[in-house]
C-alpha cells in the first residue's frame, strides 16, 4: 500500500514546495498535510510527499473586514474558533462540527478537501453562501470564487496547487442566517444541505443568498431563485414557488444515500425551513 511513495519532505517555504511540485511529471510530487484520508487517490500516483503543514497556513485571522482561514486549518480548529463563532451566529463552526469525530476533524482541513475534489461537506455550502474566495498557489497564483473553484476543480486533478487560504468579507448589517440539512444521524454526512443568508422580514425580503450543497455535484448558489425572492413578502405561497424553482434548478446526485428525486424534494423543504429559521431570529431590515 502506497509503496510508490519514496520521499517525504518538509519544504521550508510555500515557494519551495511549489517549485518541487513542478519538477517531475504532473502529480509525482504533491502537497500533503499529514492525513491520507481524502487525498489517498492522489497519493497512489505520487512519489514524493511535500508536507506543507508547518508553513503557517494554519491560522484563522481577521484583517479589516476580511476573515482568512488558512488552508491547513483543521475542521476542529474551525469548530473551536471564537472569531468564526462571532460570525453569522456561529454557522461556520456548526458546519465544521457536523463532520465525523474529533479524531478525524483534527486531521481534516480545507486544503485536502479542495485538492481531492471532496464536495460533500456542509462547511463548503456555508463558505459558498458567504461568497468565499480561494487563494491558490501553483504555477501561477490564482484567487477565485470558491463556487467556481468547486465547479472547475482545484489542483488540475493531480494535486498541483496549494490552497493557501479561503477568505470572505465578514457579513455586516443585520444578516440572519440558517443552515438546514438532512442526514440519517446528526454526525452523518448530509444527504443535502441548504445555507441561507437573509436581510428583511416577513413583509419584505430585501436581500437573500441561497447555497445548496452536499448532495449535488458541487455546492452552488441559486441566483435566479434569489432574484425571485428579493423584494417579495415571504409568504407561504412565495416560499413554495421558490422551493419549486430550486428543486428544478439543482443537479442532485443519485447515490446510496438518497435518490435524486428525494434530494429535489428536500431542497424545497430545507429552503423553506431555512428562510423560516432566519425570520424566527428576528427582523433584519434595520
Amino acid at each position: 500500500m502506497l509503496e510508490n511513495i519514496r520521499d517525504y519532505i518538509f519544504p521550508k517555504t510555500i515557494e519551495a514546495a511549489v517549485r518541487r511540485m513542478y519538477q517531475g511529471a504532473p502529480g509525482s510530487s504533491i502537497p500533503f498535510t499529514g492525513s491520507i484520508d481524502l487525498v489517498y487517490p492522489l497519493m497512489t500516483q505520487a512519489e514524493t510527499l511535500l508536507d506543507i503543514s508547518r508553513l503557517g497556513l494554519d491560522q484563522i485571522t481577521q484583517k479589516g473586514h476580511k476573515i482568512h482561514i488558512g488552508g491547513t486549518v483543521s475542521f476542529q480548529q474551525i469548530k473551536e474558533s471564537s472569531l468564526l463563532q462571532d460570525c453569522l451566529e456561529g454557522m461556520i463552526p456548526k458546519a465544521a462540527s457536523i463532520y465525523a469525530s474529533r479524531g478525524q476533524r483534527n486531521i481534516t482541513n480545507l486544503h485536502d478537501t479542495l485538492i481531492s475534489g471532496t464536495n460533500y461537506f456542509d462547511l463548503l455550502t456555508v463558505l459558498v453562501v458567504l461568497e468565499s474566495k480561494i487563494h491558490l498557489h501553483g504555477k501561477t497564483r490564482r484567487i477565485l470564487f470558491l463556487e467556481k473553484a468547486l465547479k472547475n476543480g482545484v489542483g488540475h486533478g493531480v494535486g498541483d496547487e496549494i490552497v493557501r487560504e479561503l477568505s470572505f468579507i465578514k457579513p455586516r448589517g443585520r444578516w440572519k442566517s440558517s443552515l438546514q440539512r438532512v442526514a440519517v444521524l446528526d454526525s452523518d454526512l448530509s444527504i443535502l444541505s441548504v445555507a441561507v443568508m437573509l436581510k428583511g422580514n416577513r413583509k419584505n425580503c430585501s436581500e437573500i443568498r441561497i447555497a445548496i450543497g452536499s448532495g449535488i455535484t458541487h455546492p452552488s448558489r441559486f441566483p435566479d431563485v434569489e432574484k425571485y425572492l428579493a423584494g417579495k413578502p415571504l409568504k407561504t405561497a412565495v416560499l413554495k414557488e421558490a422551493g419549486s424553482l430550486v428543486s428544478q434548478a439543482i443537479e442532485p446526485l443519485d447515490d446510496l444515500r438518497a435518490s435524486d428525486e428525494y434530494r429535489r424534494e428536500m431542497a424545497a423543504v430545507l429552503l423553506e425551513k431555512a428562510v423560516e429559521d432566519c425570520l424566527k431570529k428576528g427582523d433584519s431590515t434595520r
Partner: protein
Amino acid sequence: MKLKLQINGITKTYEVAPHVTLLNFLRSQGYHGPKSGCGNGDCGACEILLNGKPVNSCLVLAAHCEGGSILTIEGLGNPDNLHPVQEAFLEVAAAQCGYCTPGLILSAYALLMENPEPEESEIREALAGNLCRCTGYVKPVEAVQKAAQMMKKKAVSRKETESIG
C-alpha cells in the same frame, strides 16, 4: 528516512519508510494499544494523542509526526499505577472485549484535560468517534463521569498535601 519522535515520554530516532501509517509504525515498535479496526477513520480503535490532540493513527503518516509527541494507552498508566480514567473504566465495567477501550480512554483523557467537569452531552460528543460493538456507550459515559470525580478528588487532595507540606 529518520524520524525523531517522543512516544510516551521517551524521545528516540527511528527509521521509517515514508508511506507507513502511524498506526502500523507504532504497532511495529511494540505499542499494541492502538488497534486496527476499520483502517478508514471511522471506528477510533487506532486513536492516539498527537501533540495532545486525539487523532486516528490509521489516517496519519508516521513521517508527518517528525519532532512531535505521541501518547498511546501504554503511556497513560500501567497495571501497577493506573490512570484515574483507566481505574474508572475498570470500576464501572466499561469494557467487554476491550478492543475499543484504548481509544475510548484516550478520548476521555483528552476531554478531561481541557474540560475537567464535562456535561454528559460533551462526554458523548468527545466519545462519538469511538465505536464500541459490545459494551455500548452507557457504561463508558458513566466511567468518564466517574473519572472526572476521581481526578477532581485527586487534585484536591494533592493541593491539601501541598499546603500542609
